[in-house]
């Protein structure tokens, strides 16, 4: 059996690794000259900077890290909040925290009504109640404090504003366990040498990776699938797609139609070297969910140097990067220099107008009969530990 995987991000590389371990012949196509997707670590002397994905919730991922002999640390992240005048403020006031406990119980009961929609590692059938923006959903259940609690988290992870993001995605990403864990401020898992190390270790176990080769055409012919690039065409028994492809690359009407509906969020990360020593993750409360404004920064100190990575929705341009730098300085930080400003397109999802109750069910149904499959963050919430669970389940069920 021969399998092609399109996209060498975490999901693609993990799938290839798991399949090759099963003795299946795998080819990975990556259109960029480098692999890893959103796992991107910059290195300078002994210091590492995570430019994309920073950490993982620890549930499942540890077994993979042990298997690959990748060392990790679980540590606490300390958070601050700033208001529009860059003064330190509370995330929630003492009075609101009192109300929060009651609201959490209520939310748990509310969400229990939608087990089909929310209790799976992959997206699935969507209950119509959950197709409204999160803010509307919470408002209709009078859960005002919960929306204040979740807004900074959702915007900082790149999922957008609570006025736009549908409740369905929000509660897939932040289920009750995750919400409780965020409130307690549980430890998060960081890879010591950066997530790129995971990608490197995976690649050392994969025999056939094609770099800078863009796939132009994917077409079922008989019981094979033809994969065409600018330079060649090859036949496979199965093709697994991990990334949003341009219009008409897949010659399959349903997939093509579905693929066209999937959007991403333009998101930028700016990394800086800064002078200050003990600064913590900081959220800019007044900007949350807004485009072209700094959302938050996280920071880490290694070998007597402090690095700071700031996040904003929008596209890399001089004006935006300068405004981010200014806002960081206004919050009392002495910036030494910018290390990089990087453009991302993250979180494949459907905007309000495109989302239908059966969207993901249609994909899943199609996959049962087609030898072209969509996997990874196209069909599952994009956290490393969840992608791991999703890919592992897919490989176990399909091969």
């Amino acid at each position, binding site marked *: 059996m021969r399998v092609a995987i399109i996209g060498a991000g975490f999901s693609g590389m993990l799938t290839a690794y798991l399949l090759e371990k099963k003795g299946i012949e795998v080819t990975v196509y990556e259109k960029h000259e480098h692999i890893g997707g959103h796992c991107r670590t910059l290195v300078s002397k002994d210091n590492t900077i995570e430019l994309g994905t920073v950490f993982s919730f620890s549930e499942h991922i540890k077994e993979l890290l042990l298997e690959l002999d990748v060392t990790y640390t679980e540590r606490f992240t300390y958070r601050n909040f700033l208001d529009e005048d860059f003064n330190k403020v509370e995330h929630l006031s003492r009075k609101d925290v009192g109300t929060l406990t009651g609201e959490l119980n209520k939310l748990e009961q509310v969400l229990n009504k939608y087990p089909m929609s929310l209790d799976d590692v992959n997206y699935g059938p969507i209950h119509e109640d959950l197709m409204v923006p999160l803010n509307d959903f919470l408002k209709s259940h009078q859960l005002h404090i919960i929306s204040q609690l979740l807004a900074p988290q959702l915007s900082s992870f790149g999922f957008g504003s609570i006025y736009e993001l549908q409740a369905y995605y929000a509660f897939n990403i932040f289920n009750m366990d995750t919400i409780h864990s965020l*409130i307690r401020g549980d430890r998060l898992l960081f890879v010591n040498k950066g997530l790129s190390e995971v990608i490197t270790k995976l690649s050392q176990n994969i025999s056939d990776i094609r770099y800078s080769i863009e796939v132009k055409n994917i077409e079922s012919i008989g019981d094979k699938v033809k994969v065409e690039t600018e330079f060649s065409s090859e036949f496979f028994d199965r093709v697994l797609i991990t990334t949003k492809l341009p219009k008409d690359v897949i010659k399959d009407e349903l997939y093509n139609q579905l693929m066209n509906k999937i959007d991403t969020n333009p998101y930028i990360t700016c990394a800086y070297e800064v002078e200050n020593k003990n600064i913590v993750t900081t959220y800019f409360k007044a900007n949350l969910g807004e485009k072209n404004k700094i959302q938050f920064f996280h920071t880490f100190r290694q070998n007597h140097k402090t690095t700071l990575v700031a996040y904003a929705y929008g596209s890399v341009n001089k004006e935006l990067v300068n405004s981010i730098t200014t806002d960081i300085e206004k919050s009392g930080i002495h910036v030494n220099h910018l290390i990089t400003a990087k453009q991302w397109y993250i979180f494949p999802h459907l905007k309000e107008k495109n989302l239908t109750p059966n969207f993901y069910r249609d994909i899943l149904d199609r996959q049962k009969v087609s030898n072209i499959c969509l996997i990874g963050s196209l069909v599952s919430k994009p956290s490393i530990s969840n992608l791991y669970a999703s890919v592992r389940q897919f490989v176990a069920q399909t091969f």
Partner: protein
Amino acid sequence: MHRDLKFNIITEGQKMGISATCEKHKISRTIYYRWLSRYKTFGIKGLEDIEKKFSPLNKTKPEVVSTIMSLIRNHPDYGPRAIKYLLEEVGYDISESAVYNVMKRNHLTTKAQRIKFSTKKDKKITRNYPCFNDMKSGECWLFWTTHYGDYESLGALYEYTIFDYKSRVACTRLYNTLSPECFEDLLTAAAIPVAQTLGFETKHLCFFEEHNIKGKKLDSFLTNINGIFQNNGYEVTMHLLKEEDQLNTLQEMRKNHTHQLLSFLMPFIHKNISFSSLKIQLQKHIREYNLNHKIIYSGEFYSPVEYHVKSSGTDLILPLWAYIDRTY
């Protein structure tokens, strides 16, 4: 009488009534309450037979030792006599042989040893006291553990406390073992978040040598702790102090803290509460202590957190977890 027996008698008294227990074991109520009070102040250790350690009256005072050490660091090429003259200039009248003895205790009798010592600035570990007089709120932490005893339902019970010297802000957790991992948990889950929240500029951490939590691997333990501090942007000197060196003020602080904790915890312990509920009860109690318990600070009453906020001139902004019970 062995400490475990005394401990059993105290426990029995809490359950069966004190007079009956005293009669059964043929001890006076005075003795019972003396033991109880010592237990509440020192934990199990307080029940051991008191062994008076001989400490010569003319032993060089810790603050003098500390000055001598800093002079050696600055003038590694000076011998005991030159150091003695320097001490006179700063107002200490100490004999040359006393200076020599301090050097000997610290393995610094040769010039080569002293030069090596003075250039070793990276490793922030010392056996001397920090200078408590100039200490600001948040700058100096004391760390101790107290063994509360072994209980049938709870197992071994240890109090771990990191305590800010000036403000008396306390971070206390309960654990079942003495280990570096528990200390690290207290430090990263409680003490550093509190320091970040209150804007502490922590510079010193004092350990007392009784601690076997670091086991045999003292060096790797300290290196690890040093790394945690550095990664959080703190430059902290670690002071390894001997228990018998404890200044009276430190001893008082520790006794008061442990006494108020055990007075609060004992009724829960004897109600056979589960370990996780006991930990949560303690968390609530410590929160109440830090935020609302009024203590006298040079004539005025504040809670520890209020005192810090006032003396550092910062605003108090509390994070979410400060209000919420966190299991550990």
